[in-house]
């Protein structure tokens, strides 16, 4: 049985709590090191080495600060040429050197020369904000450590953004737990209306989720400033690809809920579950932007599972509408719905909000979306302010508004225009992870941005996993098991080195993302007796690991 199901029909869940996580590629480079193709790989490696974690595959490269397999970028070593070629995980440049963190259950790795950070799984939007900011702080610590080792005249730069202004985009992806039934509706059974409703929601949601960007890219029309970093890079409404002709709604089918989840299989925990992999959004720093980006999506996905969205909430041309809305920071651009009405992005969001209000008020989100009423209130209030372009009130909440105001002021003070390189420079520097460089951080330190989660909670999620998802068991097992005993880690499993290799692989299964929690205890990990005995014999000081309840940790 899957944890937290609302109800079942024909053995399949009809709706599930909207557990979620993020996997975000960062903009990374080494200032002072010159290479024709950029220095992203070297920077990513220098950062990865400074993050403590457990390698995801057996015999993988260590990549740690105590002695990695290759030299850092400051030596000029080429990242991929320097890798040993017989290591399986190096054959995929989208997944290099993956480490899972025993601190909080998240992970880091290198994806196409970008350091990619993955939050642990969380259930509430507030926890997401805290987990996201906690992961950034872990990378900031790595940044400090890497820079302490840099050659004179060089420094690693990390930008929490989604495009470099030179035509290269990189993703800030979100994952949401959904029912297999909804996934099938979206991509194979009922594209109309579910897929088009989701696309319309996402496209119009940039008004509170965009980070803002100076200029345009990817052949899109010139613009001084636009709302979304990613909007110029979407060419299709749906598809499974992520690096070219990017789709607004991504159909990658990889649930990470164990083998039983897969389509056409309906046995055991995890059956009937799927993961919606959303590649649409920007990385954001403001608490409110980040909170609404995931919290409202939780509500909308719940409504899609329940079939409660107004049938008219579909755009005639979502791809064109996305560029139109994003290139219009004055929020007056109108796009046509399938019923013929022309609406602004804020109008369209208000229509979704009206549907959501009825749904939440009737208890539709109960047990599925923590804090749904608060999400709804904050979403509605933000839309009220957007509707009248009250940018003074929105700047403490929304990244694209805050960034635009800062750059505008800087340009005016210096008599510069939006096409000046200084404008793009400030665009990048806004999200620099270096607290002395990034334009966002002094505002947060001064208490001038609107915060939603306590400082202590962010710090806590740097070193402690969320207690209400399987991230808790993953982190605790990684903490307790000797590293030499672990031969592999993935989101839904931990693989152990067998004492007798002839007996095959020993696996601790964590298939239920909503299970294996603090309350469940580590004994909830699923494994055969051989694996259980191996874990117990590997326990330090004869400590019993799997048979002990969670409350004894």
């Amino acid at each position: 049985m899957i944890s937290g199901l609302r109800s079942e029909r024909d053995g399949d869940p009809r709706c599930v709590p909207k557990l979620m996580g993020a996997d975000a590629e960062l903009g990374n480079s080494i200032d002072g090191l010159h290479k024709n193709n950029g220095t992203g790989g070297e920077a990513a490696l220098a950062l990865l080495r400074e993050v403590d974690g457990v390698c995801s595959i057996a015999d993988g490269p260590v990549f740690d600060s105590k002695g990695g397999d290759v030299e850092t970028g400051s030596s000029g070593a080429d990242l991929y040429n320097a890798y040993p070629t017989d290591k399986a995980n190096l054959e995929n440049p989208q997944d290099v050197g993956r480490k899972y963190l025993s601190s909080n259950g998240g992970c880091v790795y290198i994806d196409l020369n970008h350091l990619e950070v993955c939050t642990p799984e969380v259930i509430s939007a507030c926890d997401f904000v805290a987990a996201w900011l906690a992961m950034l702080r872990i990378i900031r610590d790595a940044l400090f450590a890497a820079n302490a080792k840099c050659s004179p005249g060089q420094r690693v730069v990390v930008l929490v953004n989604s495009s470099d202004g030179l035509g290269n985009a990189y993703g800030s992806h979100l994952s949401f737990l959904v029912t297999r039934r909804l996934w099938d509706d979206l991509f194979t059974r009922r594209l109309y209306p579910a897929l088009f409703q989701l696309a319309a929601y996402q496209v119009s949601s940039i008004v509170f989720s965009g980070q803002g960007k100076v200029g345009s890219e990817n052949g899109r029309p010139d613009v001084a400033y636009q709302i979304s970093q990613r909007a110029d890079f979407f060419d299709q409404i749906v598809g499974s690809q992520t690096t070219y002709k990017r789709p607004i709604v991504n159909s990658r089918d990889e649930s990470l809920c164990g083998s039983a989840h897969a389509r056409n299989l309906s046995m055991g925990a995890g059956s009937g579950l799927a993961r919606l992999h959303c590649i649409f959004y920007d990385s954001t720093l403001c608490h409110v932007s980040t909170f609404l980006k995931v919290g409202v999506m939780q509500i909308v996905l719940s409504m899609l599972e329940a079939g409660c969205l107004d049938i008219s909430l579909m755009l005639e041309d979502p791809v064109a509408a996305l560029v139109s809305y994003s290139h219009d920071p004055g929020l007056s651009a109108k796009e046509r719905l399938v019923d013929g009405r022309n609406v602004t992005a804020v109008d369209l969001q208000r229509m979704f909000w009206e549907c959501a209000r009825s749904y939440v008020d009737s208890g539709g989100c109960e047990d599925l979306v923590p804090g749904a009423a608060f999400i709804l209130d904050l979403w509605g209030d933000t839309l009220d302010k957007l509707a009248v372009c009250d940018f003074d009130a929105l700047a403490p909440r929304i990244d694209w508004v805050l960034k635009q105001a800062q750059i505008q002021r800087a340009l005016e003070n210096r008599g510069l225009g939006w096409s000046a390189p200084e404008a793009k420079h400030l665009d990048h520097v806004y999200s620099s992870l270096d607290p002395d460089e990034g334009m966002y951080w002094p505002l947060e330190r001064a208490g001038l941005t609107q915060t939603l989660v306590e400082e202590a909670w962010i710090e806590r999620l740097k070193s402690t996993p969320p207690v209400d998802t399987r991230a808790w068991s993953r982190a605790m097992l990684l903490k307790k098991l000797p590293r030499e005993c672990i031969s592999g880690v993935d989101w839904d499993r931990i693989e152990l080195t067998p004492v007798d290799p002839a007996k095959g692989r020993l696996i601790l299964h964590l298939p239920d993302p909503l299970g294996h929690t603090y309350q469940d205890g580590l004994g909830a990990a699923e494994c055969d007796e051989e694996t259980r005995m191996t874990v117990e014999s590997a326990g330090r000081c004869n400590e019993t690991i799997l048979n002990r309840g969670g409350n004894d940790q």
Partner: protein
Amino acid sequence: MSQNERVRPQPPRFAGQPLDTGGAEEFGAVRSRADRLLQAADDAIARALSNDSERFLQATRQSGGQ
């Protein structure tokens, strides 16, 4: 604090300051806060623009990602 207490859930997790969602704030107060908001980043902006912007933009060139 015992180990048991350390890992227990600790709600509420909201920041101490009450969230203003009512929109009732005086215009002058909003304007004043907005001014302070912009001024707070002045040092960071000045530091950034004391460097060569074109060189910085080339140095931060990225590979295409997902």
